[in-house]
């Protein structure tokens, strides 16, 4: 088991945001979290990344208690957080420069990924010249190059147009299957969740708890035309029922 979250409860100054949160990720699994805005998804990621400590409950990473411990995952936050004083290339290499694995090999790997991310030609520019979508892709590349098996992606494609989004979906699935990554993915898009995931957790409004855990039974590799299959529509209906109940 790559990640296990057990019985997390949390309040911000007496105001509960999380109630008995339980979820798990198997090795090399792709799991999405979907839930109303403000329910506590990013807060859960902060717990997993060790940036905040929950009031109670435990987080296990490969069987080890990592509650409040950092450096076990690659975390892409909701904001792009590119450093204005670093060029795009220096920004995407932030992870290796912190874990002291900054080698020529990883620099070459980074450079070879620039075209795929639609960033080629911008290696030596400062991030101020990038568009919103490009900034997000640079942040995703930075997360990927941090090189931890567990990736936490908080709405990584929120600022992208539909076309780029689909390209990034294909790329992400390819990376995920080739590079042996485990992905926990926050999204507001039901279609995105179904297309990418092995499993989907639907969270309740605040305080967040798991309302529904759904296995996505569609075969891989996923094709865009699966979106009209009866199986797909059934999954979508189930998710919508859970999300928009009451």
């Amino acid at each position: 088991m790559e990640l296990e979250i057990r019985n997390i409860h949390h309040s911000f100054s007496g105001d509960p945001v999380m109630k008995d949160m339980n979820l798990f990720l198997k090795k090399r699994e792709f799991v999405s979290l979907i839930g109303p805005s403000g329910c506590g998804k990013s807060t859960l990621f902060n717990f997993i990344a060790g940036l905040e400590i929950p009031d109670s409950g435990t987080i296990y990473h490969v069987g080890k208690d990592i509650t409040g411990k950092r450096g076990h995952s690659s975390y892409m936050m909701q904001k792009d957080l590119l450093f204005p004083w670093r060029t795009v290339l220096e920004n995407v290499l932030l992870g290796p420069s912190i874990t002291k694995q900054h080698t020529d090999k990883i620099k070459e790997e980074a450079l070879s990924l620039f075209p795929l991310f639609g960033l080629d030609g911008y290696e030596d520019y400062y991030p101020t010249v990038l568009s919103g979508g490009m900034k997000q892709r640079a942040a995703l590349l930075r997360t990927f190059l941090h090189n931890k098996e567990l990736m936490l992606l908080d709405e990584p494609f929120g600022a992208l147009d539909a076309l780029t989004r689909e390209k990034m979906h294909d790329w992400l699935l390819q990376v995920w299957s080739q590079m042996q990554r485990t992905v926990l993915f926050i999204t507001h898009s039901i279609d995105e969740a179904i297309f990418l995931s092995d499993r989907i957790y639907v969270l309740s409004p605040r305080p967040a708890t798991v309302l529904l855990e759904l296995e996505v039974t569609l075969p891989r590799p996923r094709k865009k035309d699966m979106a009209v299959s009866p199986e797909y529509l059934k999954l979508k209906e189930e998710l919508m029922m859970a999300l928009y109940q009451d």
Partner: protein
Amino acid sequence: MNSFRKYRYSAVPALTAIMIFLLVWEGAVRWWNIEKWILPAPSLIVQTFRDSLHLLPAHIWITATEAVLGFLLGIAAALIIAFILDFSPLLRKSFYPILLFSQTIPIIAIAPLLIIWFGYGILPKVLVVALVTFFPVVVSVTEGLQSSDRDMIRLVHSMGGTSWQVFKKVRFPSSLPYLFTGLRIAATYSVLSAVISEWVGASKGLGIYLIKAQSSFATDQVFVVIMLISLLSCLMFLVVILIGRIVMPWKHKTKK
């Protein structure tokens, strides 16, 4: 290249205004026959400047040395103190308010004290300049270090970064614009405080030259010195801006 052209054009109106000002000044002095010890004409000031060229360099050199050494000393002390205050919240809470309060002490009033302690040499002047430049720098760096983006810090932490890495990769670079704001202020103070500290007691320097010129009613000499002080201050200011552009290329360039 492009920016050069922009600067040249933006300088044209300012230069024209200065020219007109000088012409009006010259004309007024000649028209009303104003005595030269009250207001010398620009042409006379230029003439006096040329005549005293052999005297001036020694004085300029002394004052510039005091200003530069004091400035460097003030910056070094300010950076060290700011970093120490930054690493210890307890020290920051206890000393930062005192630091802010001590800005109200007129440093120039301390100059006689420094002369008593350190004599008439260059040292007390350097110390006055250092004290004057210390405050704007220490305050701006402390503010800068405290104001970095919280989420950038969290990002480095989430990657397993240490506090030192957070300092090096986030807090220090994001404090640089604040540092240079402080440095620009300090640079303009540095020459002025060197000049004034010479008034308290010195044998050479633009401050002394100014006092001597004033006591003999050599108003044209006074104007020459004022001009030189402005030029020196301007030069310090420009050097700070130039270094800022080198240290923070992302502030004015889009590409490294």
